[in-house]
């Protein structure tokens, strides 16, 4: 059975119950004057199909994504979450998640941290891996608890190893150690 199917009811349901974007923003009524953020992001994702991504290296896609997020702010994060869930190429969605830590303008730090924490429990292993990488980039000790929960629930050895690595780095660099 594919790993992501098995996780749908368990991990994914658990994450949905524990993390809700409603905590950060009340549901808004759609306004026809607003830009179609989901549509624009969808196009951006589509244009990145086939692009080669390398860890720690800016790409055409990452530059455009970070600019987009910084232009539109918090509503763009909600739109990104929707596009990531539905996009055909999870490679592109994972790449988007890896660059969330580098969106430093207009999107609150707490919102970026929250998005990455939620994705630690996503059904897609690529998105979970990207969330671990993103949290490693944020280097915030507040993520330790969520990473420990993710470690308990993660079944893939490679991702478990990556979580342990991230935890080790965060715990070693905590003040007072």
């Amino acid at each position, binding site marked *: 059975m594919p790993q992501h199917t098995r996780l749908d009811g368990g991990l994914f349901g658990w994450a949905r119950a524990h993390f809700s974007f409603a905590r950060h923003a009340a549901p808004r009524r759609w306004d026809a004057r607003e830009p179609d953020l989901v549509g624009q992001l969808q196009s951006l994702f589509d244009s990145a199909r086939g692009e080669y991504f390398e860890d720690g290296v800016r790409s055409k896609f990452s530059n455009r994504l970070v600019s987009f997020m910084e232009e539109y702010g918090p509503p763009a994060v909600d739109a990104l979450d929707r596009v990531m869930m539905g996009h055909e190429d999870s*490679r592109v969605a994972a790449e988007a998640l890896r660059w969330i830590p580098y969106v430093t303008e207009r999107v609150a730090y707490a919102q970026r941290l929250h998005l990455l924490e939620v994705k630690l429990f996503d059904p897609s292993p690529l998105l979970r891996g990207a969330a671990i990488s993103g949290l490693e980039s944020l280097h915030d000790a507040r993520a330790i608890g969520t990473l420990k929960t993710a470690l308990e629930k993660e079944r893939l050895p490679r991702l478990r190893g990556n979580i342990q690595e991230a935890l080790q780095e965060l715990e070693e660099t905590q003040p007072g150690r």
Partner: protein
Amino acid sequence: MSLVLRKVRGDDWLPDVGGGRRSDDDVAAGHFQDPAGVSLWTIDPSETNLERVIAAIAACRDFLKPVEYLVFPETILAELGIPLVVSEGDTPDAYANSTWHRHLAIDSQAEALRVVRALRTRGAECEPRRCPKPTVKMLLVQSVQSGHIQLESLKDEVRTIVAKTIAQLGQAPHS
């Protein structure tokens, strides 16, 4: 037996990465397709040049990150009839570029898939390896201190971290 290194993203080797929309081999094959030629490095059988090559790869990056890579016997490519071509690398380590860099002459998705499937048949031997971020940082420090890489050639964030680490170690980099 000579070995070959290809930098990859380890997550692309996870089970079910295609999410039912693409095959897992298809996702992994993306690492063996590049119109400009797929960059590889020769690694000696005892892997004595491995750390220097990892540092050379990390030296090209905008941010300090773990380096993930495959190491596999060169014979796998020979058996598939895919030639390794000597070519100059494009990293800040000039010696590594001219001595160990190669590129793979792959011109189709089908050939890239053949490489991935051949690697998968080898099992754990050809699974991606990972050099963690703290180790990557120290390999970069070593390369700068030994003069293999000039500190000035590193990108801003990586240069700052490496320079800070060297200062903490109390040793001046080679100029």
